[in-house]
């Protein structure tokens, strides 16, 4: 059995199938890319994995155990962290407090939580901003804070939702470095990303979806040359 697996997950919003029978498997230590045009259901898949929305049908397995149907906070306690595409910093708290709040998940005492938070902030290169209030941060730092907060819950699997969106080219490079560093530290990653330079360089495998259905799966090179992927992204005229 795969490390992480979704089996035929389906989500209906009223009559609309936002996710329709998506199955994929992620191996431990991989960076798994999730791509697709706008509105194709990528973020919805994340929301289904961490039970932010209930599944209409299908199951999600993690480390051999079924996690679909659990509460959102329990999914996190099982070791799946996530970031939000529209960042949700705890605005009126400092960067350090933001991370401490999530570090408490595995820390027994406050001292332990502070220590873990500081280590995580260091890891994410946020140390100079530690005492800043979260709402005063620019977008690049907010995205980093989002990652730091998720990392402080010591996830075994991290769901990254458009971490590089809205960043300038040099910030994108830094984001790529950070993601690689997280992978190297032993965390499996599923990443949703629009910026092809990011997703193609770091992913081990890529899943492409459109209208909530899988249209391609494979290595970055395979997916990039898939005619269906090209037509989904560029339109029928560009079909090779």
């Amino acid at each position, binding site marked *: 059995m795969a490390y992480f697996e979704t089996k035929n997950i389906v989500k209906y919003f009223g009559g609309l199938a936002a996710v329709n029978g998506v199955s994929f498997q992620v191996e431990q230590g991989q960076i798994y890319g999730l791509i697709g045009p706008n509105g194709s259901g990528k973020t919805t898949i994340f929301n289904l994995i961490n039970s932010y929305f209930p599944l209409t049908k299908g199951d999600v397995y993690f480390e051999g155990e079924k996690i679909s149907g659990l509460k959102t*906070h329990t999914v*996190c306690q099982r070791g799946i*962290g996530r970031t*939000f595409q529209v960042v949700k*910093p705890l605005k*009126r708290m400092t960067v350090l*407090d933001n991370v401490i709040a999530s570090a408490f998940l595995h820390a027994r005492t406050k001292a332990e939580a502070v220590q873990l938070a500081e280590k995580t902030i260091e890891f994410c290169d946020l140390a100079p901003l530690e005492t800043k209030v979260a709402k005063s941060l620019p977008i690049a730092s907010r995205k980093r804070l989002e990652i730091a*907060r998720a990392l402080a819950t010591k996830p075994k699997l991290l769901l990254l939702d458009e971490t590089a969106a809205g960043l300038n080219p040099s910030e994108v490079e830094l984001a790529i470095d950070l993601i690689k560093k997280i992978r190297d530290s032993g965390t499996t990653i599923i990443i949703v990303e629009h910026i092809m330079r990011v997703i193609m360089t770091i992913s081990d495998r890529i899943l492409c979806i459109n209208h909530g259905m899988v249209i391609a799966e494979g290595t970055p090179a395979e997916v990039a040359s898939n005619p269906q992927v090209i037509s989904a992204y560029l339109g029928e005229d560009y079909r090779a």
Partner: protein
Amino acid sequence: MKLSAGPLILLGVLLAFPLVIQDAYYQHLMILVLMWVAVGSGWNLISGYTGQVLFGAAAFFGIGAYAAAILPHQFDASAWWGLPLGVIVSVGLAFPFGWICFRLRGPYFALGTLALAEILRHVATIWESLTNGMVGILVMQTWISKVPYYYMALALAILSTVGVKAVMGSRWGYYFVSIREDQDAAESLGINTLYYKMISLGLSAVLIGLAGALYTNYMGFIDPKVVFSLHDVSIMAILVGIVGGVSTVYGPAVGAFIMVAVMEAFRSAGFGLLPYLTKSTGWPFMVTVTKYVSEAHVLSFGILVIVVILYLPNGVVGDWSALKRMLGFGKREAV
């Protein structure tokens, strides 16, 4: 060490107060202030720090007060047992209520708490065999002097302030604020938001219920209109929090002092100034003014809230530096 000097001096003043000021009227006012510190701190915990606005503090206050009153009334027990019983009953109310109503967010939760207080007021009115209904319950006071009550209220106020401070520095505090700032993010960080909201409401209920039980013991008489009052308890609790400073440890203490002073200023028509003027001038016009002013304290609450929201949105404690500037203390900075 400089930081802790302020509270210590304040504590000293408060400890010495009833020994220096022996006038029962001012002692009474200070007891009210200290009780409101507890209610305000309780309100601040769930509404200020956890962000779940409690519009029905009267529910916990009243049920604590009735727990203390029903004991001597029905069971011949001392009303002082009402303190622990009040805590048990109000927490026993807070948990199931929270479990059901924390599915509601924002104003809908606030309305739910408002409904809870109103329902309890009606129950207390109608269930005459238990509560004596509108007639109310008379409890024999233990002491004639106000001093013992003063020190109990002071202990409660200190417990509230120190307790809130301790809680907010701990895991619970971080979780409460996370829930206030973004409930969805908090849930995704592994925080069981329903559970921690219930904890927060439970802690609030402890403080507010204790204040209610102490109120019964001190005042010696309660009826549903007084202890389940919408404007005199629920809204007063909100005002204590807002005027003092939402999400500040010492805000409710400052707010309680200001609010009791304002309430009393209107109730007594300017601490007896207007009645004095009426008497000395003998104008019939002043009689009318005095009558209206003494009935206008609810109106004054409204005006006060508008002023605070416009000029001190974070309350007196939260906007202390802005307030100093407004009053002209901070002129040196401008030079």
